[in-house]
């Protein structure tokens, strides 16, 4: 994106205004009684207009370029009601095409907002009106599906109140939208990764680690084994805190975004991971988190102390804070940074911020190897026989020899957190699943890549080189099994569908729209195909841009 000088000055002016807004928003927030939704402005009703244009976000006292919605990053919270119609007009004030996608909504596909798949996109200067009924309730979000605009801040929260009020409503609630933002243009970040995939990894293994021993380093034998395979156990995130700043509702830790509460009351936190490239480990020290919804769908309450979530996932948690301040700490999975906010009875309070924990190391399990220890045995790391459908080209570094069901794992680096960490298997739908039929067939999809070349694909083919849609019949019940043949975790999102995770919970399977597939892991979900063309991709935006994406085409049977 080009930023002419005039526009740049306008941007800086706008930035200064936004900076002023930060002070009001973060420090001197007025407290006007429940229910309070703090953060970006809230829009409701059946007719809404959003303007997408250039903006800025304040980070560490400097202004970073952004793509803003109605001038703010994140965009307004859309607060809708189940059963209403929505007529939402998007005005494109950028010099390039834009779009908005409604992440997690089951809507008519032509309103889904993916240029080239569901509609033609919104040209510069043009506007487009989305019109669709709101049929579900819960915590969702929306974002641009054009280029790398999402990575520049073009997203917002979408909260839908149920048509029938809940029996015991939680009156106090806050939207916590977590994101990542950089002073460096996303296209440049991508160019750096192409030239040096380890460019942003500032926590590699060193000789000093080896000599120091401990958990921070592999012992020599293991290190040699990994070097022989040309694998890096510290390659946990491509883009890290060395270039990203982590935000809560658009505010960095210094802003200390604060959610207020009255001691003794229950507080619902609607947690949205809107980051382009980041997994977060979310915890609030001293406060148990009662998870009540995943991806907007009510689950049977489960109490944990921490959960890891990937780009695109949302969790609703209920907390019961006492008369003090608490730190909401969202540490990145690779422990290179943290998004921080405060939960307090009054503005201006602050609790201790927990330090970053040591970065974890990937293990043999992340490579799709069954056994513990370093023994490699005769297992081949790139045996086409283990995945006949995968095109074994230069973009496929490995094929997991024995991918595991990792739905009982808490995520990378949280095995020994020392407290309760959420796993997918802990989730049970609150209500019976709407479609209890057995899947008529199974589709196996391999997530593939080569970190060394920064190439990402599905079944060994980037979408751009092999436009092979996944065909489905309207209304058919089928099982999708995702196998991760890379060393990275991928949050996989299927547009326009809520699917049921196959985690052994029968008709109470948790329903999700985005599922994190751990490295060396496999996970299945059952789904009922909805008609139309739907995007299906990794929600790490650079992975999607590199081609880890397919189109699902659902046609009448």
């Amino acid at each position, binding site marked *: 994106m080009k930023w002419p000088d005039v526009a740049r000055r306008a941007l800086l002016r706008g930035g200064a205004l936004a900076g002023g807004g930060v002070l009001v928003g973060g420090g001197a927030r007025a407290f006007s009684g429940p229910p309070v939704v703090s953060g970006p402005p809230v829009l409701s009703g059946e007719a809404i207009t959003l303007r997408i244009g250039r903006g800025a976000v304040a980070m560490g006292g400097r202004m970073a370029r952004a793509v803003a919605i109605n001038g703010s990053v994140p965009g307004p919270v859309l607060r809708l009601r189940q059963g209403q119609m929505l007529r939402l007009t998007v005005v494109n004030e950028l010099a390039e095409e834009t779009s908005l996608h409604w992440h997690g909504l089951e809507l008519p596909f032509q309103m889904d907002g993916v240029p080239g798949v569901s509609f033609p996109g919104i040209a510069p200067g043009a506007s487009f009106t989305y019109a669709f009924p709101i049929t579900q309730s819960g915590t969702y979000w929306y974002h641009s599906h054009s280029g790398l605009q999402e990575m520049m801040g073009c997203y917002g929260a979408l909260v839908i109140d149920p048509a029938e009020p809940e029996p015991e409503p939680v009156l106090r609630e806050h939207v916590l939208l977590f994101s990542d933002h950089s002073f460096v243009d996303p296209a440049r970040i991508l160019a750096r990764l192409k030239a040096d995939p380890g460019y942003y990894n500032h926590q590699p293994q060193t000789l*000093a680690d080896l000599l120091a021993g401990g958990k921070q380093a592999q012992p020599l034998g293991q290190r040699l084994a990994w070097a022989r395979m*040309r694998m890096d156990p510290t390659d946990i995130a491509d883009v890290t805190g060395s270039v990203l700043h982590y935000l809560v509702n658009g505010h960095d830790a210094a802003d200390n975004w604060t959610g207020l509460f009255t001691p003794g009351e229950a507080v619902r936190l609607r947690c949205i991971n809107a980051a382009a490239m980041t997994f977060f480990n979310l915890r609030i020290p001293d406060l148990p988190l009662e998870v009540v919804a995943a991806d907007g769908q009510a689950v049977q309450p489960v109490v944990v102390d921490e959960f890891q979530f990937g780009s695109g996932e949302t969790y609703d948690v209920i907390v019961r804070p006492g008369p003090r301040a608490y730190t909401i700490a969202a540490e990145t999975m690779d422990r290179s940074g943290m998004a921080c906010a405060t939960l307090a009875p009054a503005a201006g309070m602050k609790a201790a911020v927990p330090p970053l924990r040591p970065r974890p190391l990937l293990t043999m399990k992340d490579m799709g190897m069954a056994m513990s220890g370093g023994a490699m045995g005769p297992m081949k790391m*790139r045996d086409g026989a283990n995945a006949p459908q995968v095109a074994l080209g230069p973009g496929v570094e490995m094929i997991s020899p024995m991918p595991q069901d990792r739905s009982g794992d808490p995520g990378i680096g949280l095995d020994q957190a020392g407290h309760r960490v959420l796993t997918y298997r802990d989730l049970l739908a609150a209500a019976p699943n709407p479609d209890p039929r057995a899947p008529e067939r199974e589709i196996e999809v391999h997530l593939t890549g*080569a970190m060394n070349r920064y*190439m990402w694909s599905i079944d060994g083919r980037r979408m751009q080189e092999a436009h092979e849609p996944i065909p489905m019949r309207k209304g058919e019940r089928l099982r999708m099994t995702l196998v991760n043949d890379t060393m990275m975790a991928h949050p996989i999102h299927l547009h326009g569908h809520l699917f*049921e995770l196959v985690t052994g919970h*029968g008709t109470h399977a948790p329903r999700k729209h985005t599922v994190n597939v751990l490295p060396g892991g496999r996970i299945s979900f059952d789904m009922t195909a909805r*008609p139309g063309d739907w995007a299906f991709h990794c929600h790490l935006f650079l992975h999607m841009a590199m081609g880890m994406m397919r189109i699902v085409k659902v046609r009448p049977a």
Partner: protein
Amino acid sequence: MRAPAPLGLLALLALLALPQGALADPDPASPAGTDQSPGSAEAPPVVHDRAADRFWPAAAMAAAEQAMMAPAPPYAAMKVDLAEYQLGAGADRWRWEGEGWAGDVNRLLLRTRGEGAVGRRLDEAEVEAAYARAISPWWNLEAGVRQDIRPTPARSHAMLAAEGMAPYLFDVLAAAYLSDRGQLTGRIEASVDQRLTRRLVLQPRMELNLSAQDMPAERLGAGLTSAELGLRLRFEITRRFAPYVGAAWTWRSGRTAAYARAEGEGAAARSLVLGVKGWF
């Protein structure tokens, strides 16, 4: 075929128990919902039509789809592996080695290297242009041409090379050259980065030069002509800019060494090196 009676009874019991049973505990006798195994129905045929054409102008959809499917713009980088000042027994020397590329799986490659005594004409200078193609996650095959600028008379070569990362993370380049006079030579370079700390990197580096024939005009003998071993310690101020200090040892061997001695030069040399490694 009839199900054995006990199994049928169990299934019936399970069915009866279902309404008041625990919400989640799977019953292996009568799996429900996601506990059921998938069938083996045929997949429908792959279709390529756009469902959105029914709602939006087909031409606009076609253009948007084309934009989405457009191949990524070419990526590019310029790397300077060696740019150094060498302090040895004789005159101080300088030396460079670097490359630039553009593309992705298919790349256009430009490579250059050279060296000489400070204040004098260059001893060696060459430029290479090649097409490189990824043939595996770790290896590229390169084909191209090399033009020597020094020594004179300048030679041209056809070049075929494999470049990539070997097990144990060694960066390797193995190239064969056929000159315009039909002479076959080769070069193998290998290096490995050992991180001492996050910013401090020790890089052992080896280079072997080979010749298939005696080349008296170039003062090269058949076989291994020279070998070089280097040890460089760099400090990464950023990943893209790292000054280094190190040492390099070179040996000429066989007849190449004899040629050197005949001209009053030593067959072996060592030097202290100071330089910069980087990319942009």
